[in-house]
């Protein structure tokens, strides 16, 4: 008799507008196993969890929980059938106490209420998850790290048969990660099955027998964890190092930036930058310098802190410690529109094009009211840089292809003629051809003398244009130097795919 399956999804799909966030995924989780799910940014991992937990309804497909079809059930009904989940960004009931958060969950877990048994059950979980000392605090007062613990504790209070953990390992230091791994492993006997979405590979390798890889909404592969992590295709999806060499006869890919020996004058100086979300340091004492006209690549795995640093520079996120100077003046603490006025252009992650504005309007809106006179000239300059935009100037900003939208985003950031251009993950979600075209344009941008800070997950692309590069991990600066030195560094793979996997992977 086959072992019962805790979860099976068949042809599961979910569309948003025209985009398939999850595309025909077939996956099964065996009873008693812990399955990991990994994948780069935008792969659809959170959508997947939302589909299972009932927070989202699927466009197509079926979901079977321990053999029972729950596809049509509302969220609360699925919970009562035994699904418990944590949220990637913790959502505690802020004005209830920590204990009350658990008691609420416990109440709905069983058919007959035994109040005393509930309370004992919850207290045991509190002790186990290290929350016993704050049991009476209002949950909203907990720092981020403990809120993540509360997510887990609350999900456990439901006495779930299937436990879904959404990026519960993010932002932890080594000791905390080890403790989390212990905790997850101890749950094996109590919970029917666990699905673990993670970026922190240490947790995946330590807890999951099998791992599935999602990429662009599709299931790339699933299998024993060690094999999956060593699979070069999987590495390629994350690191981008598996890309084809350019066809023979084509110009060789340029190696890095200028090999000038003259150090340019510093334009942007970041010293000891730290950013906190709740009690967690998303950035810890990072130093970064970008010189006039220089191109610096900022690399690192997902969650390393790259976007946080970019946002701190442009003023969207406050600094907890450290300083940021631009052209000699302090800019930390200024509102985003003021930072832009100083000469920093920020091409945001995810493009953030205004759909209700046309291409030309998207460009024009980036000019401050005072710069009205220059508008025509700047527009011409940007159109010269990106001719495709001129062709589509009257259409809605989002009516173009992904690559063209990215060009629009870059062009928009260039409109106020910034001295420094921050490019955050511009190659995200684009086909390799489009990325090549994009980087061609960036070469032209560089030729105008604009300094650039290129944030990239994909090492190969990030280093294409760079004069210098930095690699972040866990919010800290771990590597810095010339592109060729970074590429050759043995630490690099470990920083992305996790120490254990890198150590045991075939060379």
């Amino acid at each position, binding site marked *: 008799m086959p072992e019962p399956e805790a979860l099976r999804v068949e042809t599961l799909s979910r569309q948003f507008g025209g985009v398939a966030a999850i595309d025909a995924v077939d996956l099964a989780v065996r009873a008693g196993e812990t399955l990991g799910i990994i994948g780069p940014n935008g792969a659809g991992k959170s959508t997947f969890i939302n589909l299972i937990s*009932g927070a989202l309804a699927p466009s197509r497909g079926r979901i079977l929980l321990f053999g029972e079809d729950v596809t049509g059930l509302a969220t609360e009904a699925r919970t009562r059938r035994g699904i418990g989940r944590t949220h990637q960004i913790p959502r505690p009931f802020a*004005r209830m106490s920590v204990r009350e958060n658990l008691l609420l969950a416990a*109440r709905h877990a069983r058919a007959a209420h035994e109040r005393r048994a509930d309370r004992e059950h919850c207290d045991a979980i509190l002790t186990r998850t290290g929350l016993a000392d704050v049991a009476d605090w209002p949950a909203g007062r907990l720092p981020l790290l403990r809120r993540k613990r509360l997510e887990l504790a609350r999900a456990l209070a439901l006495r779930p048969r299937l436990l879904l953990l959404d990026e519960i390992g993010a932002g932890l230091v080594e000791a905390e990660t080890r403790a989390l791994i212990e905790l997850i492993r101890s749950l094996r006997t109590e919970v029917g099955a666990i699905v673990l979405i993670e970026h922190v590979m240490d947790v995946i390798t330590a807890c999951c027998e099998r791992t599935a890889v999602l990429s662009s909404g599709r299931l790339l592969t699933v299998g024993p964890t060690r094999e999956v992590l060593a699979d070069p295709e999987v590495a390629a999806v994350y690191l981008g190092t598996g890309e084809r060499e350019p066809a023979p006869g084509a110009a060789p890919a340029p190696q890095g930036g200028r090999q000038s020996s003259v150090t340019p004058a510093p334009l942007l100086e970041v010293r000891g930058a730290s950013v906190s979300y709740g009690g967690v340091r998303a950035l810890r004492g990072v130093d970064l310098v970008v010189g006039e006209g220089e191109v610096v690549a900022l690399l690192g795995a997902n969650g390393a802190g790259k976007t946080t640093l970019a946002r701190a520079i442009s003023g969207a996120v406050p600094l907890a410690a450290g300083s940021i100077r631009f052209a000699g003046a302090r800019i930390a603490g200024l509102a985003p529109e003021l930072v832009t006025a100083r000469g920093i252009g920020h091409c945001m992650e995810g493009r953030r094009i205004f759909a209700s504005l046309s291409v030309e309007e998207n460009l024009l809106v980036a000019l401050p009211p005072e710069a009205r006179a220059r508008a025509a000239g700047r527009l011409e300059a940007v159109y010269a840089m990106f001719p495709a935009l001129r062709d589509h100037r009257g259409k809605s900003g989002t009516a173009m292809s992904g690559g063209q939208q990215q060009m629009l985003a870059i062009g928009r950031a260039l409109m106020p003629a910034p001295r420094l251009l921050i490019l955050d993950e511009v190659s995200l979600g684009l086909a390799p051809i489009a990325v090549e075209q994009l980087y061609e344009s960036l070469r032209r941008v560089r030729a105008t003398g604009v300094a650039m800070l290129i944030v990239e997950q994909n090492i190969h692309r990030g280093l294409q244009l760079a004069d210098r590069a930095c690699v972040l991990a866990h919010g800290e600066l771990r590597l810095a130097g010339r592109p060729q030195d970074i590429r050759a560094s043995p630490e690099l793979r470990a920083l992305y795919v996790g120490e254990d996997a890198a150590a045991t992977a075939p060379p």
Partner: protein
Amino acid sequence: MSGSGARPGQGGAARGALIALLAAVVLLALVPYLFGTYWQQLGFRALQLATLAIAWNLLAGYTGQVSLGTGAFVGLGAYAFALLGNHSAAPLPVLLLAGGAVPAVFAVLVSPGLFRLRGLYFTIGSLALAEALRILMVNLSVFGGASGIVLRAATPPFYALYWLALPVMVLALALVLVLLHSPVSLSLRAVRDDEDVARQMGVRSFRVKLGAFALTAFITGVAGALQSLKLGAIEPYGAFGMSWTIDTVAIVIIGGIATRGGPLLGTLLYVALGESLRGLPELHNAIAALVLLIVIRVAPQGLWGLLLRRPWRRATAAEASDA
């Protein structure tokens, strides 16, 4: 006291509060012996307002549904009481219960539609509903149209009204306090804090909202029935008017939303303010609204929250307030 809301060391404080409450009730019951008709009338009004505030606080403060339709329930309760009283020989308690039941049924009927609206849409929807009801009543001659209905029964003296309003308020308070100390309180507050996550934790949020809504409607309706009894005649503008909502919202927010004592403290302050501006009702309303403005900006947890100021309660404004 057991139940989800109890914390260690709180047992003593809770018992103390209960005793204080009982003592207050006894003192309040003595008012008609000690004071004349003016104070009895004022006391009636205060008790009535407190009842409304307690109910609204349950719905807005503890369940997170900010309704601006208090007038709808007051009016329905007032009319139900008057009509039933005029056309049947039912005794007073039954009439009062009917005054609560009719709005409660109405609440249940409109819930499926109304609760499709979340958050601010619900608020606007409730306002529109109350206004629509008022206009409807003005136009339906079977209910007396714009001139309303006159009650056949004689209006009882003020001390009798007072002694009716007091148990109504006390019962409302008791009912709500019991609810807040029961496990249902967890479900209510979970729906308030984050309805989606509440459902993810297994809470049947629609039922929870419906229950709170119906209970609020019931209590508010009984207060409306009292109004009917007091005036001896009711008409749509007064019964379904916006002033009920304005009074209630101001009282609860100034007193302290989502606190047990807030509605009571708020009523005291509101009535005191009204007395100091006797004869200038518009100024009273304007100043009360000004205080409301200031409280929202400066002390969103209300004055009760300020007074209590427990050490770990130094929560941010966003956490402590309903806003």
